[in-house]
């Protein structure tokens, strides 16, 4: 295992979040807690038809309701929302409306109940347009067109379609195979379901717009807003101090930020626009559902020779993100081709949700591999071990790859060799099963920035643009700064998530927070240390490069007894400011965090109920910078996977095209009783490219969870369920076949 270049003082320990006290005592002010003088409250009216032209909209009655201050809609607030759609121009209010849930109007009033009442007074005449809900139907030539370009969602650059990727020689690969298997796996739309509903507060001061957003990226939110409102960046301020989760659907600026800004402008008062839970489920986005058709060629011993994936992903009415499927990423596939068609339908939009392209296709591919192992009479552990990825696209090495150790340590911990049995061979009504799958997520370097101010008393101020979406990012940044500076953690104050104050951050999504901004914090610390040493050198009668700083003391490396307190060095300068913008690149290497998950289940074959009795998650995320939140990340990701595996699904009524379960109760996010004790194993090593050796943690844990559970259910019952969620009715139906 690669060793760290030095011993760490705080990195790698179990450190509680630096803002844990404020969060659990209610002193942390989340966006929804902010109250501004004269603030108005807004509510949204959404389309109740799936596809229609708005012929007329009459707001006169709503405007007359006492307390109503403004009503905006597609005619009087024609503001583009560029990041809301990449195939056809999307506005904050659209005409035609393209799904049940498309925003039609917003009302600002003196309280939210009045705003709600006013929505009912808005009269709209729709002229219906034929609609389509099923993505396969949508691809037929005579299907109603949702985008001007057609229903295959063709945008520019990253949003082109179909998404195609290939390497090797597919035909040769299938020729080399002893056997070829084909099958189809289906996944459903699930919502991010983060605790904090979307909320935005906007106000204008002398032509400058401030948005208190619940965003995963203050910088990119500011860029979006400035662009679509035609403002210079200097006239837009986005602030996000505390967040109640996002899981990928709060990145950038969203339509509600814009609506709050327009309402605030029209009324000349601050406006708070908070989603209801139903708004949250249907108005923003969830994970793209998919239909994945695989053709896999294997040798008799299970070695993969070729994989062909043809898939359709349902992006809903607008293309916000890729629609890709990447579950094949964790396997050595010498000959590969995938063609994925992101498709428009008149349904709720699908876009980023934790590891956007992964859990659905890891479910498909790892389920199918598990099944092929069964067909070939191979133990799945051997199948996954044999085919695990070693080189990126069979070519490039990884910065580090401890997937093998994840498989070994995880299988040992769960007792795979003692507990695995032939699928369906467990006796009795309550059948035991064990399953596994591989997962992970790309680890990439990129643009980051940080500023560190050392105050005259030796305390430090770290300024970073990152928002803390629940991962403990604020604490991670402070820990990196404390380690890099050589001062105690409690001497560091973090200011984050405010574009007027903090430097650029790429956005806290895609597991980029630590890997992008972490190196900048280290570099900013080095910058300020150089300044400290230059100031301290004369008094310590040594050269600057001979000095070190630890526990707030500047000392001579060769003789630590020669030292002065940090504050004495800084005092002369009043304060010191270190800053850095870093943009490291990989050369001839690829980065990835890896995981191997293992689950034991008990299936009640009489009721179809599945209980997870044990769960082991082994992760290679490089060096772990803070164990406490890192373990929580793994547990949380697994529990989200459990929801996706067992119960979560946004159901659309076919006749009316209306979602019928857009809430926690009916969309069935898991509770504590569904959450097993997740045993987390970190296969730790020092990655040479990561900040303090760390790779990525946030996105990986959900990737393998769904497939792991599905494979355990197969091992228990001997029946393969190829469509999510694996509900009791599906288990009973499979049993009766």
């Amino acid at each position, binding site marked *: 295992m690669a060793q760290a270049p030095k011993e760490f003082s705080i990195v790698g320990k179990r450190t509680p979040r630096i803002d844990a006290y404020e969060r659990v005592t209610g002193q942390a002010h989340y966006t929804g807690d902010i109250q501004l003088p004269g603030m108005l409250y807004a509510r949204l009216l959404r389309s*109740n038809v799936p596809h229609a032209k708005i012929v007329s909209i009459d707001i006169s009655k709503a405007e007359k309701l006492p307390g109503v201050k403004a009503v905006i809609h597609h005619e009087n607030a024609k503001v583009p929302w560029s990041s809301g759609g990449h195939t056809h121009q999307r506005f904050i209010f659209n005409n035609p409306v393209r799904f*049940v849930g498309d925003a039609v109007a917003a009302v600002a009033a003196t309280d939210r*109940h009045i705003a*709600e*009442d006013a929505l009912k007074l808005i009269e709209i005449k729709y002229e219906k347009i034929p609609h389509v809900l099923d993505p396969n139907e949508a691809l037929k030539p005579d299907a109603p067109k949702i985008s001007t370009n057609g229903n295959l969602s063709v945008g520019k650059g990253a949003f082109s379609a179909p998404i195609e990727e290939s390497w090797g020689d597919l035909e040769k690969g299938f020729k080399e195979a002893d056997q070829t298997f084909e099958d189809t796996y289906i996944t459903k739309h699930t919502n991010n379901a983060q605790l904090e509903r979307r909320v935005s507060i906007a106000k204008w001061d002398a032509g400058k717009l401030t948005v208190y957003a619940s965003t995963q990226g203050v910088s990119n939110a500011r860029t979006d807003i400035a662009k679509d409102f035609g403002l210079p960046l200097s006239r837009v301020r986005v602030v996000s101090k505390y967040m109640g989760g996002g899981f990928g659907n709060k990145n950038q600026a969203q339509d509600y930020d814009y609506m709050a800004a327009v309402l605030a402008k029209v009324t000349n008062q601050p406006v708070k626009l908070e989603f209801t839970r139903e708004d949250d489920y249907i108005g923003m986005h969830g994970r793209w559902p998919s239909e994945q058709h695989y053709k896999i060629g294997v040798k008799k011993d299970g070695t993969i020779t070729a994989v062909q994936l043809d898939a359709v992903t349902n992006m809903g009415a607008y293309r916000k993100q890729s629609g890709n499927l990447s579950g094949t990423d964790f396997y050595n596939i010498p000959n590969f081709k995938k063609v994925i068609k992101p498709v428009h339908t008149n349904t709720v939009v699908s876009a980023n949700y934790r590891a956007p392209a992964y859990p659905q296709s890891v479910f498909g591919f790892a389920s199918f591999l598990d099944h092929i192992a069964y067909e070939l009479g191979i133990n799945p552990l051997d199948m996954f071990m044999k085919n695990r990825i070693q080189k990126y696209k069979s070519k490039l090495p990884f910065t580090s790859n401890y997937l093998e150790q994840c498989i070994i340590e995880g299988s040992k911990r769960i007792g795979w060799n003692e507990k695995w049995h032939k699928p369906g061979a467990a006796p009795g009504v309550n059948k035991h099963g064990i399953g596994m799958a591989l997962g992970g997520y790309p680890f990439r370097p990129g643009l980051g920035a940080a500023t560190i101010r050392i105050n005259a008393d030796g305390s430090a101020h770290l300024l970073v643009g990152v928002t803390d979406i629940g991962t403990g990012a604020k604490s991670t940044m402070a820990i990196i700064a404390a380690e890099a500076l050589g001062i105690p953690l409690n001497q560091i104050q973090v200011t984050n998530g405010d574009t007027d104050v903090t430097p650029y951050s790429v956005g806290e999504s895609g597991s980029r927070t630590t890997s992008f901004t972490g190196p900048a914090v280290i570099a900013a610390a080095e910058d300020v240390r150089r300044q400290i040493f230059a100031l301290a050198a004369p008094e310590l009668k040594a050269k600057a490069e001979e000095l070190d700083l630890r526990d707030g003391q500047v000392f001579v490396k060769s003789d630590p007894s020669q030292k002065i307190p940090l504050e004495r060095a800084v005092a002369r300068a009043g304060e010191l400011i270190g800053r850095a913008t870093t943009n490291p690149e990989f050369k001839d290497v690829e980065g990835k965090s890896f995981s191997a998950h293992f689950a034991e289940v008990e299936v009640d074959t*009489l*009721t*179809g*109920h599945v209980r997870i009795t044990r769960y082991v998650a082994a992760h290679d995320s490089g060096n772990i910078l803070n164990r406490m939140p890192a373990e929580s990340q793994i547990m949380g990701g697994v529990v989200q996977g459990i929801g996706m595996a*067992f*119960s979560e699904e946004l*159901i659309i*009524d*076919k*006749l*009316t095209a*209306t979602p*019928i*379960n857009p809430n926690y*109760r*009916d969309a*069935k996010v*898991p*509770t*504590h*009783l*569904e959450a097993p004790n997740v045993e987390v194993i970190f296969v730790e090593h020092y990655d040479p490219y990561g900040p303090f050796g760390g790779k990525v943690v946030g996105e990986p844990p959900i990737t393998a969870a769904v497939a792991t559970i599905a494979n355990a259910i197969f091992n228990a019952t001997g029946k393969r369920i190829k469509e999510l969620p694996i*509900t*009791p*009715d599906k288990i*009973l*139906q499979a049993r*009766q076949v």
Partner: protein
Amino acid sequence: MKSFQNIDVKSVKEAVGLLQKFQQQKKVAAVIGGGSEYLQLMKDHVVEPDYVINLKTIPGLDYIKEERGGFRIGALAKLADIEEHPAVREKLLILSDAAGEAASPQIRNAGTIAGNICQRPFCWYFRSSNFTCLRKGGQVCYTVTGDGRFHAILGGGPSYIVHPSDTAPALVALGAQIKIAGPAGEKTIPLEKFFLLPSVDYKRENVLNPGEIVTEIHVPTPRTGSKGFYHKVRERLAWDHAIVAVATIVESNAGMVRDARVVMGGVAPIPWRAAKAEEFLRGKRMDEASAKQAGAIALEGAKPLKDNVYKVKMAQDLIQRGLLASL
């Protein structure tokens, strides 16, 4: 939520009087106990009352009293209290278990027994403000063309809701009586007769007339030699309604069934008593075969919708499991 006026009352009589008064004024008024259910309906715009009469301020209506031959449970007794009451656990385990299976700990700490029995349906069409379904004064039950995976397989039509209560099947199995106060005074009826099939009235779930309030449940203690069980199948272990629930009570002597009760939840618009299966079991030896047959008899006449065929076998099997548990 539409604005409303809350009125705290001090007695059942006062509540009944107010209900009558508001009815005469053609105002919408409703009573709440724990509020966990009714407030949700208000937030979802399913109901929009002008007045909400708060019964929680009536002193002493949350009792659980053991008397000779049974228990008297006040309408405001909380589900959590019923779940944890030592004598209820000892003598009415099936009720204690059923109360403990309801909703979530938070809701059980607020929700009352009367509220649990009087719950409105949790059909997603009924609960959504986007649908004006048959039960809300519309023309169609959307379940017929739409998604009815959790809906009725027995007693359905023209509405296909299922009764959501966990305690009701257990109480019907126990032969509970329900006391109702109204403008004409008090009356007590068997709980089994409290619920209404949609073929009788598809706009309400029970016989409560305007102005009437549930005040008490009386539960006889089962005879010695009886064993009762409540089994519930659902997708999520908390905060989820039954896909199928089965309350079984078997009184037996030397392996022979003297009397049996089989009542299902989650399968019909009312707690569904399988009287024919009970009749079949009387005098039989309880074993795998008789339990299985009882399950089959109980589901005779089931008419599943296109999406809930699986419920039939699930219910049969669960009945078998419940009956065999008594061995």
